């Protein structure tokens, strides 16, 4: 166990970040190339940028979560996402690690705030998991990946909390440590390669959405030509 933790703290962490970085490059490259290709081919190249920007922003503002048709779900989702974005980046322990390793530093969250966000995220995750199991539509849509990622997030948050509060930790410290490192690193690795990619692609999905309605002149004819259907009627 000790050696596993040592591995995860050393080369494991390095590999996780390296894979994350490569994965982000791949996503960015693919998205940029495809976006440019679609834009070049479009018959109409006018894009309502400000409308798209406002639409995207609308989904980021957590207050909007309270106005939808599924308030408990969207509220839980918002809480989880806030925790997920804020805590890993601004936790005092993480900031200190980065400073020690790379010499970079930024302000950290006060411990009680980080604790509260973590506990809220854990509660939100439990609710989301419950929803995924109980809601008919969500259960039907869900596959292995959907549950695995939920569990990983849950383990990462819960074990992180226990690592930070050894006094209230019923588990062996090394095991908690191991679980925290493992789940967090798995999440980093999986981020660009699973549905978590939405974290990276979110800013671009509205442009994709808009370009979807910018058709290519003559494309229909070319498709039929490629299929050997030229001259055929409707």
């Amino acid at each position, binding site marked *: 166990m000790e050696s596993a933790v040592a591995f995860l703290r050393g080369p494991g962490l390095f590999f996780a970040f390296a894979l994350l970085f490569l994965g982000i490059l791949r996503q960015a490259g693919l998205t940029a190339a495809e976006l440019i290709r*679609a834009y070049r081919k479009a018959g109409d190249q006018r894009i309502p940028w400000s409308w798209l920007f406002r639409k995207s922003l609308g989904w980021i503002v957590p207050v909007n979560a309270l106005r939808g048709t599924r308030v408990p779900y969207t509220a839980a989702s918002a809480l989880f996402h806030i925790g997920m974005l804020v805590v890993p980046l601004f936790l005092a322990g993480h900031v200190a690690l980065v400073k020690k390793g790379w010499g970079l530093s930024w302000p950290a969250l006060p411990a009680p705030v980080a604790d509260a966000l973590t506990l809220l995220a854990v509660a939100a995750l439990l609710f989301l998991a419950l929803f995924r199991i109980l809601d008919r539509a969500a259960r039907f849509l869900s596959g292995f990946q959907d549950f695995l990622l939920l569990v990983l997030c849950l383990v990462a948050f819960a074990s992180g909390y226990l690592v930070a509060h050894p006094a209230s930790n019923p588990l062996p410290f090394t095991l908690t440590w191991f679980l925290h490192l493992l789940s967090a690193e798995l999440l980093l690795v999986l981020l660009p390669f699973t*549905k978590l990619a939405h974290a990276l*692609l979110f800013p671009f999905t509205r442009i994709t*959405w808009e370009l979807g309605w910018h*058709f*290519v002149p003559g494309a*229909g004819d070319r*498709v039929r030509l490629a299929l050997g259907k030229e001259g055929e*009627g*409707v």
Partner: protein
Amino acid sequence: MAEANTAQGEGRQGPLVGATAAAAAQAHPKLLPHQVLGLSYYVERLYPGDRVRRFLEIFAAVLEHTHYAHLVDTYARVGAKCANCASACQIYLATKDPKDVPCYRSNLLLEIYRRHFTFRGVLQSKLAGTVYLTEERIRELAESVYHCTGCRRCSFECPMGIDHGLLTHLSRYILSEMDIAPKALVVATREQLEGKTGNTSAIPVPALLDTLEFLTEDIRDEKGVEVPFPVDQEGREFVFFPAVSDYLLEADTLKGIALAFHAAGEAHRWTIGTGYYDGINYGLFYSDWCAERIIQKEIAETHRLKGKRILIGECGHASRSAKVFVPSFGGGRKALPVVNILEVTWDLLRRGRLKLDPDAVPDRVTYHDPCNIARTGWIVDQPREILRAFCKNYVDMEPRGEKNFCCGGGGGTVSIDEVRAYRTGVTGKMKAEQIRRTGARYVVAPCANCKKQLREVCEDHRLEGVEVVGLHDLLYKAIVP
């Protein structure tokens, strides 16, 4: 479903699946629409060769030559499966069948893409030695995409911006290239693009001219003014394209439009062209190839008459297809502007050009937002302002505007008579409840599709005394010429 089955009348079902569907539903009242609806109502002929291979060939050609590659590739990567769309979908809300969840439907196509067109998927298939796509999967996709009315309510509810409506459109386009498309749509489009009359209702020019003359006489009798319909006038601002079926079925709408222009003293702004006079574009529902050819006819006729703008009548899909396709296929920035008649009439009213009788319509009036003009927020307030100007008792439906419920006949399904029980019982169920709650006598629906569908919804749900009309039908009553 029980409601749908009891709601349908005798003899209204088509000869094909409709009849068997009714019988099946009677025997098993709990059957979900997936079992009730068959496939044969929309297939005219079936591709005779290896259909799995053909599907993949078509998909590959579409990815290569159109703009969809980017869309499909991005969507295949981001879907979070949050099921937010389920709560927005009126079909899912009516059936509670998870196969009706928009994300599930979109995933049918996205999974084919992942398994056959991405490195990981191809590798996976090679290693496992299996082929993902099967005839059964094609059949499921084909059935699923024609359950959807393409109202795009879910598209605006997806946090990831997945446009389920567009993915449904794409699936239908791919399927149509292997001849899986509703007969009703294909036959009409064939007449429009390759037939003698060149329009979906097969109305020849002499019949059109007769109709216009007849409408003029009507207006003379009812309003005491001479309102000729301008035909083939060059250099006018608007060249007018209604859903061509309006010339057969919606005389009051057309009379209202002509009278509004006349009463405002601006009849010199519009014309109808005898070269082409059909706004309908079923390409929006199933084929990009057809959509482009149809839109070129509108553009050509407008240019022939030296018109400056394309004016679409009271028709949702005609408006949106023109709004989307004219810029795409007609030169982007240089393309002809597209306007809907409601925008023009609203402008006449705003400028004080119309004198309306405030007592013309004492009954309660409500307004149904056609998805194709309201979903993006394009035309939401204009018709309400017009109606409030002369209807004493106007009430809104809830939800309304961008968040409205579809009439239940969108995406071309309204043209398929065989699925009436499904349209009114399942997809139109929410609408029937909405209409009932308003207690309105008139439901104003400025869309040819919505009108036909809502009339059937009212009939099948026994909403007695409710009359479904166009906006200009009511305006016609109120205009003081």
